[in-house]
């Protein structure tokens, strides 16, 4: 209790330094939160696209149902297929009508006859898309093969880039946070060096001297993290309606409160670690 009081007194006596330390920690953890949202979101988006029909084969009008069933069965036997769905001409028309329900002119012009039947196929692995696509193309009943390899691979590249940039930014900000906290706490330690020396000579253990500074580091880390998390989460909640219309159909939003609380907990653990490292380094040379 006494140690907590000492730490709080130290913080209160230098409010601007405390604000600086909290602010830099807030920036660090705001960035961590934002990049976590991006990494988590892009992973969900990729999963969504991966689970969607990735190869669509459109059949010629002369293709019989038995030919299509045979082709479907052959593909299943390869063991590379996770999902396969037949879309008849009628179903294709329903989908078309649903997609263009606000445009009667487009609806009038189209009948089931002019729309092709198709097979929507998902593969277990993204790299099997090419093989499946080639197999479909070689079939005499298939008129056209469309697959989303490019979308998924582009998204994968983006996610990798976000992870890389995120990690670089977070590591840099974490280092900056440690140095700034070291500077703030180091300044206070230097102001109290006479007191530290006296306490050491009066038989204080290193832990007794170190603990209030460590608590101070934990305080800056904890408050900064909480504020960073609040700002990032509030931003996400504010943007949710816009993002929902942009990411229509992808089961990402609204983000689960459990995910947000889990993120806060993980960030608090990191912040406490950063606070302890920074304050221990700041006080180290006075305890040798």
């Amino acid at each position, binding site marked *: 209790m006494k140690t907590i009081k000492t730490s709080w007194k130290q913080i209160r006596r230098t409010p601007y330094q405390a604000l600086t330390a909290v602010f830099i920690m807030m920036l660090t953890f705001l960035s961590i939160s934002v990049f976590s949202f991006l990494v988590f979101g892009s992973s969900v988006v990729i999963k969504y696209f991966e689970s969607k029909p990735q190869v669509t084969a459109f059949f010629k009008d002369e293709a019989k149902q038995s030919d299509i069933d045979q082709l479907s069965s052959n593909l299943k036997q390869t063991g590379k297929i996770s999902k396969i769905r037949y879309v008849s001409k009628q179903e294709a028309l329903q989908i078309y009508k649903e997609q263009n329900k606000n445009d009667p002119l487009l609806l009038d012009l189209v009948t089931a006859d002019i729309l092709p039947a198709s097979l929507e196929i998902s593969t277990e692995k993204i790299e099997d898309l090419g093989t499946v696509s080639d197999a479909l193309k070689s079939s005499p009943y298939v008129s056209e093969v469309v697959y989303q390899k490019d979308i998924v691979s582009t998204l994968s590249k983006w996610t990798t880039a976000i992870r890389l940039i995120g990690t670089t930014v977070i590591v840099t900000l974490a280092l900056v946070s440690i140095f700034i906290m070291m500077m703030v706490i180091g300044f206070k330690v230097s102001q109290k060096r*006479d007191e530290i020396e*006296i*306490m050491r*000579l*009066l*038989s*204080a*253990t290193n832990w007794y001297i170190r603990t209030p500074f460590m608590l101070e580091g934990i305080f800056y880390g904890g408050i900064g993290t909480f504020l960073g998390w609040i700002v990032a989460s509030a931003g996400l909640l504010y943007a949710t309606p816009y993002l929902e219309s942009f990411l229509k159909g992808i089961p990402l939003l609204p983000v689960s409160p459990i995910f947000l609380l889990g993120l806060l907990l993980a960030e608090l653990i990191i912040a406490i670690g950063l606070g302890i490292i920074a304050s221990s380094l700041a006080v180290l040379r006075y305890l040798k």
Partner: protein
Amino acid sequence: MIRLQNITKSYPTGSIALDDVTFSVDKGEFVFLVGPSGSGKTTLFRLITRDLLPSSGSIHIGQWDIVNLNKKHIPHLRKSIGVIFQDLKLLKDRTIHENILLPLEVNKADKEAALQRVEQILETVGIAEHKDKFPIQLSGGELQRAAIARALAFSPEIILADEPTGNLDTTTSWEIVKLLQDINKAGTTIIMATHNTDIVNSLSKRVIVLEKGKLVDDKKKAETEKHQKEKAA
């Protein structure tokens, strides 16, 4: 109680603070440590409290082998030695009461017992009425008493007093010496570093003389040894 064997302390600059110093102090002794400035008195105290390590030689304080003492035991050693520093080392932003409480506080002593102990020490050194004042509000003699009070917090077996009368007038100096003598009579071993020849000459105590880091004289050592032999017999 205190045994220094061939102690030499030299600094990286090449200056030698203590040169092959050997002496021992028995439990309950009152010893004056005299010598001009720079003779090594303060260095000797810093070695005894393990604030410094000697370049060579050995130091034993009771059961403690100071040179080979594990760092984690240093706080325990310092609890058994009360030090009155030359510059007092009282914290300016704490009251006299808080300053005396500090060693008990850093050792996580029971709060009630610690407060009781502080009141008792304040009475012993005669500054109970100044307990709520800050160091800046006290006279030289009162500050010196406060420093003595803090050194007494743990009822140490040894007190090292570094120039406790250095900046005091004659009357106050004698009051401080009287106080130290009273503490000594209660069984505490006292080593007092001083320049004050009047005090040293007036009291019939053992005197160790240091000059340029060397022990040049240990007056009454012979008498002490004789006393020890008689005691042993």
